[in-house]
C-alpha cells in the first residue's frame, strides 16, 4: 500500500493516508474495509462497471470536448425558459462555498446567513405578487402549477374537482400537472384562447359548479400580455374556484400586481433572474393568500428570536412537511431550488426596483421592435395577434419548418409551432443580434 500519491487509484476525495487507514482498521480489529460489509454473497456484485478513473484535467478536457459538440447558434428561444444578463457579482457571491456547499438549514443557529437570504427572497416575491405568503421555492413553474392545483383541492370546502387550464399551455406544464393530479380526485380540462389570450366567453361557458381551479398566464406561452386577468379572476371566484396566475418576477415588476386582479395563488418561473440558460433547470415561484398558509407545499422561512432575544430566522411551520407529517404532508417535496432562489434574490437586489422595471420595459420594447421589423419582411407576418408582448411573439411564414431549418443554417434557433407558425423570443442577451435575425429571415423567406 502506498500513501496518497499521484498514482493512487482510490477516491481522490477520501483523504486517508495508507497509515491512517491501517490504524483505523486495526482499531476496529479487521483486516480490510471489505470485512466491515455485511452483504450476502447471493446479492453481492463482483463485476466491474468498466469506468476508468481519470484525472481532473482529463475529465475537464473530455467535457469541454463534449459540450463543444453543441452547435453555436444564437437562440431566439423562450416558451418558459428565459435568461437575462446575470451580473458577475451574482456568480461570485452565490459560488461562495458557505452557500453552495451547505445543506438545508436544520440547525438554524449556524445557518442564519442562508435563512436570511431566503427570507429576503420570500419578501421580494411577496412584494412582486402582492400576496402575503411566498415559499422558498418549488422545482419549477410546472411543478409549482401542479402543486397549486393540489392546494386548491385541499383548501376548498366545496366539492369541485375540475381544474381549468389554457388549451395552449406548454406541454411540459400540462403533462406534469396531469401526473400530479393523477393521485387526486381532480381532472384537468382546458379552455380556449382567442387572439392568443383568454377567450372570456368560452371560459365563462366552461366555468361551473364543478370548477375548483382556474389558471391563466401573463405573459402567455406565446408572449401575449393577458388583458383580462381581472375578468378571469371574477369568473373563477363566481364559481367559488381558486384563481391562479402564472408569471415571472421580471414580468411582475411591470405588469398588474396579481393580488390586484384577485389572484389567490401565483406560480411561475423565477429563474428568469439569476440563472443563465441551463437546459430548462428552473426555480418554481409559489405565493398565495394567508388563508392557505397551513396548506402551503414546500419550505417556509420565518422570523423568530433567539435565546438572547435577538432577531433570528428559522424554517417554520414544518408540521406541513413530509418529514413530520408523512403521508398527511402537504407535498412530498423536500429538496427544492434554494440556491437558485438565492441567485434570483441577489440579481433582483442588484437591479433594484428601477432596474427591474427597466428590464421589463425592454422585454416589451424589444419584442415590439423585432415584431415590427420582421413584419416588414415580405412573406413574414408578426405578431400574429393584436396583443402587447413580453419577450416573445408568434410569427407567420409559409413553411415554418423549412424557414427554421434555413435559419439554423444561418446560425439562429427559433421555435416551430406548426406548419405556418414560428415563435421568437428576444431579451437583453440576444437583442443585439435581432437585426441579423431579421436579415436572415429576409434571406430565407422567399
Amino acid at each position, binding site marked *: 500500500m502506498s500513501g496518497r500519491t499521484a498514482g493512487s487509484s482510490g477516491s481522490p476525495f477520501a483523504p486517508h493516508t495508507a497509515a491512517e487507514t491501517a490504524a483505523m482498521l486495526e482499531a476496529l480489529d479487521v483486516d480490510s474495509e471489505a470485512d466491515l460489509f455485511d452483504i450476502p454473497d447471493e446479492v453481492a456484485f463482483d463485476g466491474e462497471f468498466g469506468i476508468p*478513473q481519470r484525472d481532473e484535467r482529463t475529465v475537464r478536457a473530455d467535457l469541454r470536448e463534449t459540450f463543444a459538440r453543441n452547435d453555436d447558434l444564437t437562440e431566439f428561444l423562450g416558451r418558459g425558459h428565459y435568461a437575462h444578463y446575470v451580473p458577475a457579482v451574482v456568480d461570485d457571491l452565490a459560488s461562495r462555498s458557505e452557500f453552495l456547499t451547505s445543506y438545508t438549514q436544520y440547525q438554524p443557529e449556524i445557518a442564519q446567513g442562508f435563512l436570511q437570504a431566503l427570507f429576503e427572497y420570500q419578501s421580494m416575491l411577496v412584494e412582486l405578487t402582492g400576496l402575503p405568503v411566498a415559499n422558498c421555492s418549488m422545482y419549477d413553474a410546472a411543478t409549482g402549477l401542479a402543486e397549486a392545483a393540489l392546494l386548491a383541492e385541499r383548501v376548498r370546502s366545496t366539492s369541485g374537482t375540475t381544474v381549468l387550464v389554457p388549451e395552449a399551455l406548454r406541454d411540459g406544464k400540462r403533462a406534469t400537472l396531469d401526473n400530479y393530479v393523477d393521485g387526486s380526485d381532480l381532472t384537468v380540462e382546458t379552455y380556449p384562447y382567442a387572439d392568443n389570450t383568454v377567450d372570456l366567453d368560452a371560459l365563462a361557458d366552461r366555468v361551473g359548479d364543478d370548477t375548483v381551479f382556474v389558471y391563466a398566464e401573463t405573459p402567455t406561452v406565446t408572449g401575449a400580455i393577458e388583458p383580462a386577468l381581472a375578468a378571469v379572476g371574477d369568473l373563477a371566484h363566481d364559481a367559488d374556484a381558486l384563481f391562479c396566475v402564472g408569471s415571472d418576477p421580471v414580468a411582475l415588476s411591470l405588469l398588474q400586481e396579481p393580488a390586484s386582479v384577485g389572484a389567490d395563488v401565483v406560480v411561475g418561473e423565477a429563474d428568469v433572474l439569476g440563472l443563465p440558460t441551463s437546459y430548462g433547470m428552473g426555480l418554481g415561484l409559489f405565493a398565495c393568500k394567508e388563508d392557505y398558509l397551513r396548506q402551503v407545499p414546500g419550505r417556509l422561512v420565518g422570523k423568530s428570536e433567539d435565546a438572547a432575544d435577538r432577531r433570528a430566522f428559522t424554517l417554520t411551520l414544518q408540521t406541513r412537511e413530509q418529514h413530520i407529517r408523512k403521508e398527511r404532508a402537504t407535498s412530498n417535496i*423536500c429538496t427544492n431550488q434554494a440556491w437558485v432562489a438565492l441567485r434570483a434574490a441577489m440579481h433582483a437586489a442588484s437591479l433594484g426596483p428601477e432596474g427591474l422595471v427597466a428590464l421589463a420595459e425592454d422585454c416589451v420594447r424589444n419584442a415590439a421592435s423585432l415584431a415590427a421589423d420582421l413584419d416588414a419582411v415580405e412573406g413574414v407576418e408578426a405578431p400574429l395577434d393584436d396583443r402587447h408582448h413580453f419577450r416573445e411573439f408568434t410569427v407567420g411564414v409559409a413553411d415554418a419548418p423549412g424557414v427554421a431549418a434555413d435559419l439554423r443554417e444561418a446560425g439562429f434557433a427559433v421555435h416551430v409551432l406548426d406548419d405556418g407558425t414560428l415563435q421568437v423570443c428576444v431579451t437583453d442577451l440576444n437583442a443585439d443580434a435581432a437585426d441579423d435575425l431579421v436579415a436572415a429571415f429576409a434571406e430565407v423567406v422567399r
Partner: protein
Amino acid sequence: MLALATEVARVNFDQARFGDDTRNEPLLSEKDATAVDPGENSVLPDDLTRDSLELPRISEPELARHYTRLSQMNWSVELGPYPLGSCTMKYNPSFTDAVAADPNAAVHPDRDPETVQGTLELLYGLQEYLATIGGMDAVTLQPPAGAAGEFTGIAVAKAYHQHHGTDKSEVIIPASAHGTNFATAAMAGYDVVELPSGDDGRVDVEALEAAVSEDTAALMLTNPNTVGLFERDIAHIADVVHDAGGLLYYDGANLNALLGRARPGDMGFDIMHYNVHKTFATPHGGGGPGAGPVGVVEELAEFLPRPQVRKVGADTPAAAADGGAFADAGDADDVDDTTEDADGPEYELFDPARSIGKVHGFSGNWLVLIRAYAYIRRLGDEGLLDASAKATLNANYLASLLDLDVPYGPFHHEFAATAGERDAADVAKGMLDYGVHPPTTKWPEFVDEAMLTEPTEVENKRSLEDLAHAFNEAFADSDEELHDAPHKTTARRVDQTSAARDPRLSWHALEDGE
C-alpha cells in the same frame, strides 16, 4: 484510549458579527426601500401595469458585503464535517463547478436535438453510468430531486399495474423510512401500509408476509436501511413482494454504502432513484437544487417520463446491465471518430412507448446532472469502490470512539447512536459549541433519542476524532449547559415555537424594530 487530535474547547462561530453581540446583518429592506411607479413611463397602457413597486436599491459594493456577511453566518461542508445521517454532505469537488460553467453547456431545452449533440451525449452517458451502477436497464434524468424521483418511480409502478389491468391500492413502507416515501405514495393516490421494524432493526419478514396482498402495488425500501444495516433477507423480501404481484422500489438514499459492492437491480429491485448529492458529491446549495434520476428494469422502461436519450438507430433504451460497457467509450478519441465520421446526429430524443408523461417542465436540473457525470468519470470503478469502503470505515471508526451506545449493527455508512436519557436535540445543540455540525436527531423513531450519523468518506482520521470529542463532550455536559446551548454561535437557540405560532414570513410582516 483516544488521544486528543486537538485541544477540545468550545469555539465561537461568529465570523460576521462584531463583538458587541447586538448587531445583526440588516435585512436588505432595512438598507433601502425605494418605491417606483412602474406604469409611469411604460409603453404599455395603464390598465396593464402596476402602480407601485417597493424594493431595496443597493449598490454593488453593499450587495457584495451583504451576501459575504450572510455567507459567513452559515455552516458548509468546506468549513467542517456535516454528518447528518441520511442527509449528509460530501465535499463537492471544485472541478465539477468549473465543468458545469462551460458556456457551451448553456443551451435552451427547445433546441433541435441535432444541434445539441454534446448535451445529449452527456445525458446519454449519465443514463448509462447510472444504469450500470444500479444494475438497472433504463434511467430517466428528469426528476429534479430525490422526492420527485420517488414520485416518478411510483407513478411508473402505477402505470405498469394499470397497463396489466391490475388495480392496486397500497404501498408498503417500513416505519423507519424517510418521510418522503409516505408522502410520495399518498400523492400518487395510494394507501400507505406501515411496516414496523423488526427487533434487529431490519424488515420484519413475517410482518411483511402478513402485509402483502393482491392490493400491494409496491414496497419502498432503502438498503442499507436507515440505521445502516444491510437487509440480509432482501432476496426473500423481493420474492414475497413479487409473488404478490407487487414491485420493489429502492430509495437511493444509502447507495453510497454499496458502490461497486452490490446493486439494487441484483437484489431484485425493479425501480430505484439515485441520490446524487450523497452519492455523486453534487452541491446541495442550502436545500437544492438536487436531482433524482430513476432507474428501472426492462419491463418498466416503456413507462419512463419523456423524452429519453438514445443513440440513433438503437430501438431499445439503455441496456448496460452487465457492466464493462464503458471500457472502450472512455477514450475521447473514439468519441471524436464517431461524431466526425457520422453523416447525421449520433444521439436523439425519443418518447418511451407508454410514457407516464412528464414530472418537470423541461429536463430536470441540468447543472446538477453535469456535476454528477463529471464526478463519476473522475472516480471511475476504483474511486467509487473506495468511496463505499472509506464511508463505511469512517462510520465504524467514529462509532467506536463514542461514549454513546450504538444499538444496531453491523452498520455500514451510517449508524444510529442513542443519547439514552439525554435529549438528542439538546446534545446536538451542545455539539455546535465544539465547532461541528451535529447529526440528525430523534430519527428514526424506533431508536431512543437517536443521533443518526453519517460522516461519509471525506473525513480523515483526525477529523473523525474531533467529531467524536464533540459528541462525547456535549454528551457529558450538564442538563443546564445543554438546555441553553449553543453558547458560541452567531445566533443562540432559536425559538421554533414562536416562529410557528406567529408566522412572520416576509419583511412586510415585521413590525418596526422587529
